[in-house]
């Protein structure tokens, strides 16, 4: 077990799978000669050659579709979007080709593809480059979605995604690439659909995914100073969704905050709220609260950006509110 970065862990997962299966290849903008826009594929061109590590033109719709076509023929493409922001251009191929193909063909044509890249905001990249794209990928059935938060999860979930016979989006975080952590050296796969309790507490549940796990943990540390102990549940994959783990933490604390990076309307959190109130109605002592990006496009200016992003303070306040320690709920 070595301490490596999240970036290196993703690289390790791709190499692990490319070593065991020749039908896996990596295609995307700048993945080969440039070693990846964020250097996630560093060294892979040298290791696997330009048959399997391929620089594409800036043609998101086209190269995503080409990868889906290759998957139709039985290959297992890893299609890198430089960021998921740009994948909106490719969404037709994701939804209308990748997600619906198996069903339309009555099970004849599985699409074992991975779409991966960073999602959400980094720092001051402004409106068009700072969008969390989860909603666009979970809404349609036929796609799975994983959101690793730590280096170990990055390796294990990406490996699982590559082995999965369905389209899996793996959403990473630009701000996570340098995060370090212990990662198993040996073959490592984390099954999709298993949430991870990243911290245990009895008073309130912070449920979240992806990059926001770190914000949740920081909030939990802050709350601990006030003797409020939070469960921090990292969903790890949004489809399949570990409903049991969600219901377990709700039953334990009876108070829940859902934290996500994206916008509120029809966000992932909305679905989690719907699930909880439907299946654990009597377990709730107060409404499930949500912390999201402000319902505005991401502004560039540092101060506005900070205001727009969901931060530790907002999570702490939401937890307090869930516990009624901030007075009566509005």
């Amino acid at each position, binding site marked *: 077990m070595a301490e490596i970065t999240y970036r290196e862990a993703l690289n390790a997962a791709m190499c692990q799978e490319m070593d065991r*299966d020749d039908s896996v*290849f990596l295609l995307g903008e700048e993945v080969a000669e440039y070693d990846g826009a964020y250097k996630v594929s560093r060294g892979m061109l040298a290791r696997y050659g330009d*048959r399997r590590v391929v620089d*594409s*033109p800036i*043609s998101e*719709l*086209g*190269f*995503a*579709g*080409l*990868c*889906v*076509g*290759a*998957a*139709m*023929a*039985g*290959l297992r493409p890893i299609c890198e979007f430089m960021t998921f922001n740009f994948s909106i251009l490719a969404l*037709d*191929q994701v939804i*209308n*080709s990748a997600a619906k193909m*198996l*069903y*339309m*063909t*009555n*099970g*004849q*044509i*599985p699409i*074992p593809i991975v779409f991966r890249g960073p999602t959400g905001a980094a720092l001051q990249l402004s409106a068009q480059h700072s969008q969390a794209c989860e909603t666009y990928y979970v809404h349609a*059935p*036929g796609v*799975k979605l994983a959101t690793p938060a730590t280096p170990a999860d990055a390796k294990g979930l990406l490996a699982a995604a590559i*082995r*999965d*016979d*369905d389209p899996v989006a793996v959403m990473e975080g630009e701000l996570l690439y340098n995060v370090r952590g212990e990662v198993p050296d040996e073959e490592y796969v984390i*099954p*999709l*659909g*298993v*949430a991870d309790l990243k911290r245990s507490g009895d008073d309130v549940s912070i449920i979240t995914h992806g990059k926001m796990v770190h914000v949740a943990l920081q909030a939990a540390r802050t709350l601990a100073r006030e003797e409020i102990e939070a469960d921090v549940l990292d969903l790890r*994959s949004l*489809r*399949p*969704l*570990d*409903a*049991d783990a969600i219901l377990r933490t709700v039953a334990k604390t009876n108070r829940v905050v859902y934290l996500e990076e994206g916008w509120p309307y029809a966000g992932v959190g909305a*679905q989690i709220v719907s*699930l909880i109130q*439907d299946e654990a109605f009597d377990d709730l002592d107060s409404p499930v609260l949500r912390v999201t990006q402000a319902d505005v496009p991401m502004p560039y200016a540092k101060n506005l950006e900070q205001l727009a992003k969901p931060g530790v303070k907002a999570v702490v306040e939401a937890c307090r509110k869930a516990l009624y320690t901030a007075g009566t709920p509005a």
Partner: protein
Amino acid sequence: MARANREMGAAVAGIEGPEAANGREPAAAAGLRGFSREELHGLLADMLLYRRFEEKAEEAYAIGRIGGFCHLHIGQEGLAAGAIGPLRGDDLVITAYREHTQAIAKGIAPRAVMAELYGRATGCSGGRGGSMHLFDTTVGFYGGHGIVGGQIPLGAGLAWAIRYRGGDQICICFMGDAAVNQGAFLESLNMSAVWRLPVIYVVENNGYGMGTAFARVSATEMEARSGAYGIPAHTVDGQDVLETYRFFEELAGRVRGGAGPQFVNAITYRFRGHSMSDPVSGTYRSREEVESQVEERDPVAILRERLMEAGLLTRGELEALDAEARAACEDAAEFADASPLPDPATLYDHVYAEINPHGRLFLDGRPGAPTGGRARVDGGGRHG
């Protein structure tokens, strides 16, 4: 594979060389060179089958047996026979939604196609796809796609996979004339050219995208569209099935040999409305225009007349072939009609190839929806 796709036999005596009857080769015979009588009859039989199949579908639609959108290929059968005919069984075909006869040409049984149009479990897509989504990977037919232009990158991807594995198959990717205005066309042709993929992009140029004449949405001729990527453009008369067949036979061979991607502008005409709900003629094209095309440019009639003129087809033979075609379509319709609807219990099958043992994949909480925590590996999965 369609019936025409058989070994090329010896050429027919009498239309072989300039030493034909009375020293002059008859005009009709000129186009027949290189085809055996058996092959010629095979091609005619194929096209009759396609024609009768579409007529049967039209009938079935009228009485409500077929639903949804249904786009007939009537008038364009020369392309199914002439472009797909010369392919190998392991070559791949992908296309849009006007694909009934193409599916048959590539080898899907008329029964399985008709049953799919009827939405039955015995259909080639199990009744889930319908008219626009015919599939059978065992014969290399990859659909059947409904988003205009959506199949173009997929076709490039199929060709990518061939190249990746070092195979010598090729892929034909059909599209309508209107599809070349989709951005996917640029992106796919460009990548195909850069990576020299073994793919032939074929525009079935019937002159219209629904009610819009190509010239109203393009400032150039079709042939101009592929040069931007360095892909050679070819034009072929899709109503002349023999020219088309010969052309594709030659081109497929070249692409198989490494010639790189090709672009074919195949001139054809749609004899019916855009789909079953559209009139045959209207504001966008006159009745006269359609009538003159039907009169002069019917690919079935053109081959039939040519064979008769050359003395290679008797009326009796024609009637026999046609009766065979009609019978096959009748049979297909009866088969479809007698086939069961898909089992309602299968509603949630094939959404995913792999039902993960953990977590919940379906979020509607409906009875019948597979819930999480249950390891259920679906039959469609090909996990190695």
